[in-house]
């Protein structure tokens, strides 16, 4: 019950901050932008001019799966950035302003406090993500060719898991620092490091959560789910639980001090 109270309060707060409106819109724009500009590239080049007389521009239209991956890649960069930025103050701002002491002076358990906040943010980000991917899919099928909707939905669900891991990392640093900027900065550094290390040792770290989007690409192209995908998902879930546990314990230790 207590968990639900915090959860509802957080959802209401997101609504008041207009997060429920602007985050989905921004995600949709990110997902839709790249496929559209790719489709209209020849026309854009033509109207900008500067091409020598008689030069023919032959840019092969990418297959639908590749166009769809443009949406995913765009969200992997800008979407993650937005996710980090909107959640950088989840706990740290309350630590700083003292609201947190007010809340925890009541018999509120730390576990409820952290998980309810995390869940509310996850709901917002996941729904925005799925909506934006559907919008991207709509444009891709219109401009480049068919992708099965069920295939997209499965990909979207897997992709959400990567974002949930990102949010849990941000939550962990939220409990450690009071400065929102610092939380965002360190979270982004850590996520970048995961991405870079994974891309260097991708043949060894086949279970890395950062490879989820790569496996989604393979799935969209071939229709086959790699078995390593499940390993990545499993590791993501484990890391998520670890990050949240660390968040809860650091918050507890803070209270003892």
């Amino acid at each position, binding site marked *: 019950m207590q968990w639900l109270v915090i959860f509802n309060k957080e959802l209401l707060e997101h609504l008041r901050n207009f997060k429920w*409106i602007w985050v989905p819109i*921004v995600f949709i724009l990110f997902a839709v*932008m790249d496929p559209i500009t790719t489709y209209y590239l020849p026309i854009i080049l033509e109207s900008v001019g500067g091409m020598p007389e008689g030069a023919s521009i032959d840019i092969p239209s990418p297959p639908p799966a590749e166009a769809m991956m443009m949406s995913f890649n765009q969200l992997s960069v800008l979407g993650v950035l937005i996710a980090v*930025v*909107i959640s950088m103050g989840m706990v740290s701002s309350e630590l700083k302003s003292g609201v947190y002491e007010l809340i925890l002076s009541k018999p509120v358990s730390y576990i409820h406090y952290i998980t309810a906040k995390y869940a509310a943010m996850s709901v917002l980000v996941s729904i925005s993500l799925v909506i934006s991917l559907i919008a991207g899919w709509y444009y891709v099928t219109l401009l480049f060719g068919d992708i099965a909707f069920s295939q997209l939905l499965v990909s979207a669900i897997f992709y959400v898991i990567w974002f949930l891991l990102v949010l849990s990392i941000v939550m962990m640093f939220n409990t450690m620092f009071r400065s929102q900027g610092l939380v965002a900065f360190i979270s982004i550094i850590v996520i970048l490091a995961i991405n870079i290390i994974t891309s260097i040792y991708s043949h060894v770290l086949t279970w890395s959560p950062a490879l989820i989007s790569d496996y989604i690409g393979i799935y969209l192209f071939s229709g086959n789910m790699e078995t390593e995908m499940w390993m990545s998902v499993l590791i993501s879930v484990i890391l998520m639980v670890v990050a949240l546990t660390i968040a809860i314990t650091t918050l507890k230790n803070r209270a003892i001090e």
Partner: protein
Amino acid sequence: MDETIFQLILPIVGLQLILIVIALIDLKRIEETQGPKWMWALIIIFGNLIGPILYFVIGRRP
């Protein structure tokens, strides 16, 4: 051809407009922003997609 471009781009322009309008409504209602309000109004209107995002992320922080 021109018509299809129009139909495809229209929803995107619409979404951007919604984003700008919501940011402006919020700017009008909010008591205090980080920095002067007129500056944020300019950023929202002329900042394209980035403007409203910057406002929601940085500007409306108490």
